[in-house]
């Protein structure tokens, strides 16, 4: 995505450099890792002196230097893949079939294949560095093997190690997609990069070692049953003979070679440590706080300022970093808060504050209205710049075009939509082929996919069974309510090509009815049910996948409002105070409704000592807590003055609960 077409200024100026810096650090760390690997692979406890001297002498050998060059290239590739595949909004499959679709996705296939190859390359380096019997793929046959001494025989140990590298590379890629390893989470506390790295490094080593052990077990089972296939293939293609004097490795006796297993495990750990360190450094660099200016005196820089960044068609990562920066500045930086509260120089309008709050308030409104078009929302500016406008306008389009469903393969938006429906996991998604562009970033796809193409008209045809399956913040009891909404209601841009308004034709209706029949038929089969049944709480997770942005928005907004109590000299905050409060209260109501649903309040199993980031699984709880804290922050600061704010009676009642600390 970054290589093709015009790339965004932020990606090319900041993200790219951060990724490059993280990769550079990994490359610098490579000799250390390699040295450790050599020392450990040469381990012989009987001859410690020989062990040390051998490893030291080997480290200066030409082989190792050459391997370091190759490993550098591998790290560069891994870094490139990290950059291409990272996401700040995880894609959470709601059904097993969606997960399967994710794994078999062409984009994922490219990823897996590349990591397979790189795993093999790393394993080759490892085998060369270990040396001994692993070094070459072919060795002269021994005398008693039947053949003549001039024939070359296959060195199965070498092949075994190479295949292990490929296997571990593939499982790295597979686990990455299953466990959302490409998800970049943001820490609750800010720390310097070095300290973060130092804190996470033991975890990386431990996780790699354990993961390598599991992969080793699976690989041995795999090789035991299917090992003869690659062996025979290599033998025939390279015209090598089988050495019958050595025990074949796909036998129990061959696999019980402890030193072989040790070397295999060490090599696997070496591979995973390098790759996970690359990923760790990448995540640390990417999620580092970025300071976005509140205002700029030069008009050419205006697109880099906070209000502009929060609105336009900006990459998700930029929005996240901008919101994080907003949350930080609202807490820690009085001088930058002054800029937010300041008036424009000629004219004296509080543009900064107005722009900022408008973005943030609409953020919340879109979520709390469950993606439904709010009657008075979608103001004039929505069509132009607001980030939410895309969602909102997308919804308007959807209302006009009820035919954009996963069933209609003919529509222009189909390619984009199918991928996203697969991820939001409706039942119908399983029937659509994945025809997604492999270069779209996951985040982008999710956002596009997040939009639920079901319109009220469509919903009436659909079985309620299916309707229930798509993630929603909450469902209103009135059946006729227009539940066409973006489940994620992500405030991101959606590059949906606006489809032409079309009217339902007879043909499409017929196709749709056929499809419903097939669906009903298949729903009775056990396997199908297994694949299509919604995973518990997955839809809830999917719905709140981008909640981190909302949490920052809430924190930033509430801190700014609280700071205005003492710092706002012109009273600019008062102008939007009631809309801020009402947006928070509406969001609170919506979130409360969501938590009344089953599965919403069940906690996922917490796994400590794991490298994978499971923050996204608990984001809904974090959002609920942040929301309450934000409202309490405002009510505690303003005290009784808050009753002077104009509010509807319902909101006043709700606020009263907060004033009495009964929420």
């Amino acid at each position, binding site marked *: 995505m970054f290589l093709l077409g015009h790339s965004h200024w932020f990606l090319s100026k900041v993200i790219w450099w951060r990724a490059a810096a993280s990769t550079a650090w990994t490359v610098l760390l490579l000799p250390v890792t390699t040295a450790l690997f050599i020392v450990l692979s040469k381990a012989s406890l009987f001859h410690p002196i020989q062990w040390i001297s051998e490893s030291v002498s080997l480290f200066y050998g030409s082989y190792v230097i050459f391997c370091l060059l190759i490993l550098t290239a591998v790290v560069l590739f891994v870094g490139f893949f990290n950059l291409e595949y990272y996401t700040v909004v995880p894609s959470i499959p709601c059904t097993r079939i969606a997960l399967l679709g994710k794994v078999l996705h062409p984009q994922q296939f490219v990823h897996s294949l590349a990591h397979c190859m790189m795993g093999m390359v790393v394993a080759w380096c490892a085998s060369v560095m270990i040396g001994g019997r692993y070094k070459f793929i072919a060795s002269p046959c021994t005398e008693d093997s039947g053949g003549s001494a001039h024939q070359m025989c296959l060195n199965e140990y070498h092949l075994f190690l190479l295949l292990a590298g490929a296997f571990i590379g593939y499982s790295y890629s597979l686990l990455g997609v299953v466990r959302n390893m490409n998800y970049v989470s943001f820490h609750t506390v*800010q720390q310097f990069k070095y300290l973060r790295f130092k804190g996470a490094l033991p975890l990386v080593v431990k996780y790699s070692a354990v993961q390598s052990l599991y992969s080793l077990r699976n690989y041995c089972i795999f090789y035991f049953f299917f090992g003869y296939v690659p062996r025979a293939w290599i033998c025939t293609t390279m015209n090598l003979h089988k050495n019958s004097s050595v025990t074949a490795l796909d036998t129990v006796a061959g696999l019980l070679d402890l030193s072989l297993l040790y070397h295999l495990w060490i090599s696997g750990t070496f591979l995973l440590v390098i790759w996970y360190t690359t990923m760790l450094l990448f995540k640390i660099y990417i999620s580092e706080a970025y300071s976005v200016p509140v205002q700029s005196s030069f008009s050419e820089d205006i697109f880099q300022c906070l209000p502009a960044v929060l609105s336009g068609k900006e990459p998700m990562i930029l929005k996240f970093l901008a919101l994080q920066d907003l949350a930080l500045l609202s807490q820690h930086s009085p001088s930058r808060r002054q800029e937010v509260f300041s008036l424009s120089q000629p004219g004296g309008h509080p543009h900064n504050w107005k722009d900022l709050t408008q973005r943030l308030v609409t953020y919340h409104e879109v979520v709390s209205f469950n993606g439904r078009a709010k009657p008075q929302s979608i103001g004039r500016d929505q069509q132009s710049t607001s980030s939410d406008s895309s969602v909102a306008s997308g919804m308007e389009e959807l209302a006009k075009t009820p035919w954009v469903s996963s069933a209609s393969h003919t529509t222009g938006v189909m390619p984009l939509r199918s991928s996203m429906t697969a991820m939001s996991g409706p039942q119908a998604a399983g029937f659509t082929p994945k025809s997604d562009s492999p270069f779209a970033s996951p985040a982008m796809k999710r956002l596009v996919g997040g939009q639920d193409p079901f319109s009220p008209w469509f919903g009436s045809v659909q079985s309620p069974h299916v309707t229930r399956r798509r993630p929603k913040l909450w469902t209103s009891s009135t059946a006729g309510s227009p539940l066409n909404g973006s489940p994620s209601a992500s405030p991101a841009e959606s590059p949906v090509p606006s489809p032409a308004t079309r009217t339902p034709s007879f043909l499409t209706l017929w196709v749709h009815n056929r499809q419903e029949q097939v669906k009903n038929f298949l729903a009775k089969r056990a396997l199908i049910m297994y694949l299509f049944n919604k995973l518990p709480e997955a839809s809830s997770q999917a719905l709140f996948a981008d909640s981190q942005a909302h949490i920052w928005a809430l924190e930033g907004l509430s801190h700014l409002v609280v700071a205005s109590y003492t710092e706002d000299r012109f009273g600019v905050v008062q102008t939007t105070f009631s809309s801020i409060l009402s947006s928070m209260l509406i969001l609170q109501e919506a979130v409360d409704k969501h938590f009344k649903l089953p599965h919403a309040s069940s906690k996922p199993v917490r796994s400590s000592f794991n490298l994978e980031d499971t923050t996204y699984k608990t984001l809904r709880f974090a959002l609920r807590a942040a929301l309450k804290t934000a409202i309490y922050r405002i009510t505690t600061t303003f005290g009784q003055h808050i009753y002077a704010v104009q509010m509807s009676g319902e909101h006043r009642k709700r606020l009263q609960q907060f004033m009495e600390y009964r929420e």
Partner: protein
Amino acid sequence: MRILDVVSALPLGGGSVLWVLYGFCSSWIAFQFCLRFSVLFVHSRVPSSVWRNTGGICFLQSQHYKKACHRSNVCVKSPMMCSLALFPSPLPDGQVTLYESNNELVAGTSVDSYPKQEWDNLHFRRDALKSHSHLESSSKAAFLDHKDTLWMRSAAAWRDAGLSGLFEEIANSSEVPRWLTVGSGFALALLRWVSSFHGSLFPHLTLSTEDMVAEFSQVLDWSDCAVRGFAWHPHTDKFAVALLDDSIRIYNSKSATYPTLKHRLQRSVAALQWKPLCATALAVACHNCLLVWHVDPTSLSTRPSAGCAQVLSHPGHSPVTSIAWAPSGSVLISASPVDTSMMVWDVAAETCVPLQRVGGGGVTFLSWSPDGSRVLAATPSSLFRVWETRMWTCERWPCLKGRCQTGCWSPDGKHLLFSVKGEMVIYALTFTEAPGEPLGCSGGAKAAAIVADLSVTSFQTPEGEVRIGGEVQSLAWDPRGERLAVLLKGDPEAPACPAVIAVFKTRSSPVFELLPCGFVQGEAGAEPRLIQFHPSFSNGALLTVCWSNGRITHTPFYFVSAGGPRIGVGGSPPLPVPLCRTMENGDRPLFSDLCS
């Protein structure tokens, strides 16, 4: 053939085992000595000129930070220091301190004789509370079925007592081969030797869990106290009390029901605190985990289920002796004397970020400054740290005498008062600039000043001589910054030197001043165990004291403060409390920051 080769290559030979042990031990010793000497080195690097000039100041910041931090004007007036001799003499026996009015402490004959209190005085009788605090291992022998297989017993021992338990089980069992028994006996001896060596560096590690909590708790005589913890809600009239039987009760001024919280994991409660800017969440530091209860204030249930509690645990992070919520309610930090890292918890997401600093051997006490910018973290050795909370960097403050026992922050977060075990004084640190401006430095004084001398002083009362003074157990500063309560340990051996609460009048602006106010005394024979100020008392300050006889009393201090409506702890910079009181006659500033 091959298998045999490999087996012989395993490190089972005697020579290799010795090599490994040698390498392990030597690296361990080297590591520990490095740690030890790094502390000593910091001490020895103190330049003599600084040392001499500061006189009574005994704390010096390490050189590393001194360069980065600005110096502030600290001057100590040792002769002007507040001492207990200036206090009014304590009440005679039978008299109870009721309240403070017109700058005088008013006494009466009974706690209940004063009707003006908002709160009933609670009374938890020691004998009514059944203690569950006996160790599980003591009853283990009576119930353990010795017919279990070795495998089962080993697994149980591993689960209960870890590696040493496993070795002990194997060494004591008869049905294993001889070499295994001898080997595990040897390993056990080695383990004990290593742990004793480790324990000699950090003596607190040899304590049992209960003793460790008792040692580092803010409650005086924690193990024998009916009330083990107390926490006011930061915004409403509601408090939680942790009792000896490991239950927690919540009392609310608006309702008659008091929910009792019990949980399987809620054992030896060391501390509890309500989450700021939240009505429901109560964090409890337990034996081997943190519990965060969500108690719905509108619910009428008296026994909230265990499902209302979130369990936060991290391997190696037990017992938890101190917790602190961020004043903005965003994160919770927890500390354990065994764990060198302190945990920053995102409670809603149940994730934690360990902040590790090796020196000190653990973290015992945490206190978050009310403005949220700094955190005091005390360690079991003579060292404490002050973290700034923006980038989470810390300053090391090595002490010369002992570990930091307790500390408290002024409401504006500019002054930190703390006390050191083994010294009968209160120290003050002043922080001038907002943290984070020069990053990596929390900004402030480079040395601590002694502000109060609490050495034992004799008072003549009608009953005879009473000696008052001693080390500080805990400090509490009221949210307006006008009263400072100090819980003095007294001398447990001498009956004439009881534990008392000394209350100081304080002001922090324009200069920091400390004046004597008086002693708060309870019924005859009752010693104070725990003190805390009400966070939002409108007429002054309300000091809550838990006594050794299980009584909880609330002592109001009525005074007028022109501070106006106090801004909540909502993270906003608190309003500067203007100086309101005129100097009362008879009061002279006993400690003043002002340099003449």
